[in-house]
């Protein structure tokens, strides 16, 4: 199977597909909207452009150990950057998907930020063990971060897929397309992680599965961005919809409260005009409170 992969030379296809996807993203004028996806694709493209010559010239002009070491560090640095960018892509997709429901968007993003912060803390915590140091520590940390990112991606995909109607999206929407692609890559990444302990060689069956999954995802994304996106539907929710209720509740939760000074206020805090207004108001109120006759006449 390793020979089959080597024969297919799938690795040379990736930069072409990445470049094509970047082209469609720019052409559709959505690069700003999907900024983190754009950055992720640029990192992938750069990594391929550095690694492919190393693979090609390994043993032909570059000594194989030096080539492997360089390849190893470029690959893992790119992997670390992608792990961080993946989290940001999920965050931006969630924000775009929830744009019509502002209350839920705010609440969801708050929860997401906490989950992401905890994920990073857990990734560092898992990597900090006595027998891990240097590059092994980095690999362990990035691995954990990528796995958490993959799980978060799958959660996002589930959410987008099953709550697509209340968000006014359809299966032709780019938000869904990007989520589905990320979900495919996340699943393959998790399967990879489980498989990798059994494959000590760089060219194995999982590499072939990897290549096919990435190719399929990049082609799918290209198709989504090459064709115009259908407009977002008008969102009509029943008055009993839990989405509507939770959105209203979430909007109220985010309100900035007003403040009332109840004591300990020095007079210097007030402007002379304010003091004068208060003096006049109290002068008006004092006789009214002091004379009960006046009160009776008022009530009469």
């Amino acid at each position, binding site marked *: 199977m390793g020979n089959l992969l080597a024969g297919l030379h799938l690795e040379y296809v990736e930069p072409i597909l990445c470049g094509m996807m970047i082209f469609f993203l720019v052409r559709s004028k959505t690069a700003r909207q999907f900024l983190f996806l754009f950055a992720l694709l640029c990192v992938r493209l750069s990594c391929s452009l550095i690694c492919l010559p190393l693979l090609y010239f390994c*043993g032909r002009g570059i000594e194989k150990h030096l080539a*492997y070491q360089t390849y190893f560090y470029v690959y893992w640095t790119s992997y670390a950057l992608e792990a961080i960018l993946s989290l940001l892509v999920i965050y931006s997709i969630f924000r775009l998907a929830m744009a019509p429901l502002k209350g839920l968007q705010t609440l969801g993003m708050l929860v997401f930020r906490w989950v992401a912060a905890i994920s990073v803390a857990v990734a560092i915590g898992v990597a900090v063990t006595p027998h891990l140091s240097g590059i092994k520590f980095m690999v362990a940390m990035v691995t954990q971060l990528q796995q958490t990112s993959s*799980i978060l991606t799958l959660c996002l995909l589930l959410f987008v897929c099953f709550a697509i109607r209340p968000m006014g999206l359809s299966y032709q929407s780019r938000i869904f397309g990007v989520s589905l692609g990320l979900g495919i890559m996340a699943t393959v990444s*998790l399967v990879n*992680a489980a498989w*990798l302990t059994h494959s000590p060689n760089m060219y194995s069956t999982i590499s072939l599965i990897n290549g096919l999954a990435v190719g399929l995802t990049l082609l799918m994304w290209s198709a989504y961005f090459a064709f115009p996106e259908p407009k977002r539907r008008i969102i009509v929710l029943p008055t009993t919809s839990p989405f509507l209720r939770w959105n209203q509740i979430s909007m109220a939760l985010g309100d900035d409260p007003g403040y009332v000074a109840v004591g300990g206020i020095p007079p210097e805090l007030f402007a002379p005009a304010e003091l004068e207004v208060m003096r006049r108001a109290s002068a008006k109120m004092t006789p009214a409170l002091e004379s009960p006759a006046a009160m009776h006449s008022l009530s009469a």
Partner: protein
Amino acid sequence: MKLIVRAFVAVLVLTGAAATTQTSSASTQNKVVAARTSMLPIPSCAPDDPNACGMSQGR
């Protein structure tokens, strides 16, 4: 269409969940258990591997 898409998504999520359980047991053995989803071959050996992880055999 809706059912097919939902079924596909459910399969993806279940596969991911099943793989996660296997990864947890693999990571306790202190091995490299990560792979960037990419068409590039995965450098799963240490940087100072004497065989250069079979890099020159791929061509």
